[in-house]
């Protein structure tokens, strides 16, 4: 009879079913796995950039190409992109603060931090629009490269093609993130998550928003610094 009691025994280890083995809910795991796939997409773009740059005899100097900033006569290298990086890091911080407020079910605080996050995203997009517009006026676009290589030779269009494709793809992610954040913001205001009893949706969209910041950290390094 003892074998019967063994079968009837309730199995409680994480992998025996009935609960999430990762102890996070389904949506969050799916967001993580989406982000992995997105990481692969960005990685292939950046690796293409890396291998093309490695195979080139010379490459445009980023300190010269990206030295323009509004309000600065003659330009200053890295200043403008530094501001963009700072904005994105800051909006990531306000996003975690929204998540933190969500854990305390503080509706008003979540809404406030979401507003700051959305404003950060819009500010970043505005900066990028300015930069693209400025580069376009200098004659840079897909298939057009007015910049010389660092050694004075004529550069291929690989530089501008990769720059506009990669920052454009990233900017599109920022735009989607801003749209998602706005949806979350209105849901918070409408009390959707208050009724649900938890603010997990803020966390899930937060993961996406941090990922956008994460990708920018790499784009910044490989386009503007190296």
């Amino acid at each position, binding site marked *: 009879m003892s074998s019967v009691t063994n079968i009837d025994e309730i199995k409680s280890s994480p992998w025996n079913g009935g609960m999430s083995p990762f102890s996070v809910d389904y949506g969050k795991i799916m967001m993580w796995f989406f982000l992995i796939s997105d990481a692969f997409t960005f*990685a292939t773009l950046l690796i*293409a950039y890396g291998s093309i740059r*490695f195979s080139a*005899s010379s490459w445009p100097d980023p300190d010269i190409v990206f030295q323009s900033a509004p309000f600065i006569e003659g330009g200053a290298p890295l200043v403008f992109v530094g501001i963009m990086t700072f904005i994105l*890091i800051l909006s990531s911080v306000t996003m975690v603060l929204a998540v933190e407020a969500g854990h305390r079910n503080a509706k008003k605080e979540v809404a406030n931090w979401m507003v700051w996050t959305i404003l950060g995203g819009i500010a970043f997009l505005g900066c990028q629009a300015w930069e693209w517009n400025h580069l376009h006026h200098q004659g840079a676009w897909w298939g057009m490269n007015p910049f010389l290589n660092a050694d004075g030779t004529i550069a291929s269009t690989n530089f501008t093609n990769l720059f506009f494709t990669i920052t454009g793809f990233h900017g599109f992610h920022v735009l989607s993130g801003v749209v998602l954040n706005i949806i979350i913001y209105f849901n918070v205001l409408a009390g959707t998550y208050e009724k649900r009893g938890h603010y997990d949706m803020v966390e899930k969209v937060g993961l996406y928003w941090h990922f956008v910041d994460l990708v920018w950290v790499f784009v910044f*390094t490989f386009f503007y610094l190296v």
Partner: protein
Amino acid sequence: MNSSENSTGNSVTVQHETMSKKKIWNVFWILTIITAVEFIIALVLVPKGIFSVGIANPLYIILTLMKAFYIVAFFMHLKFEKLTLIYSIAIPILFIVALIVAMLYEGNYWFDIR
């Protein structure tokens, strides 16, 4: 069967360690300082010839990976998740590392035969 309350939707989310406001701002300062160090290298140390590009570039990459760690571990909360989840997210990234090594090697080869 008695544990059915565990299986309903979101109640599985155990209230684990979370980020306090203080910790969040600490991570913010770490990220800001790392970025500032990158700027000092790019705008002061390299132009003045204190660091060569051969030293600066690996440093940029190390600092970038440090920033990535802080964002993923603390902002994305991965450090506080279960070990199995951490591994299932971190291990696939090794494929990216493999592709980086392979493609940069290939790029170098093209440079050599040109």
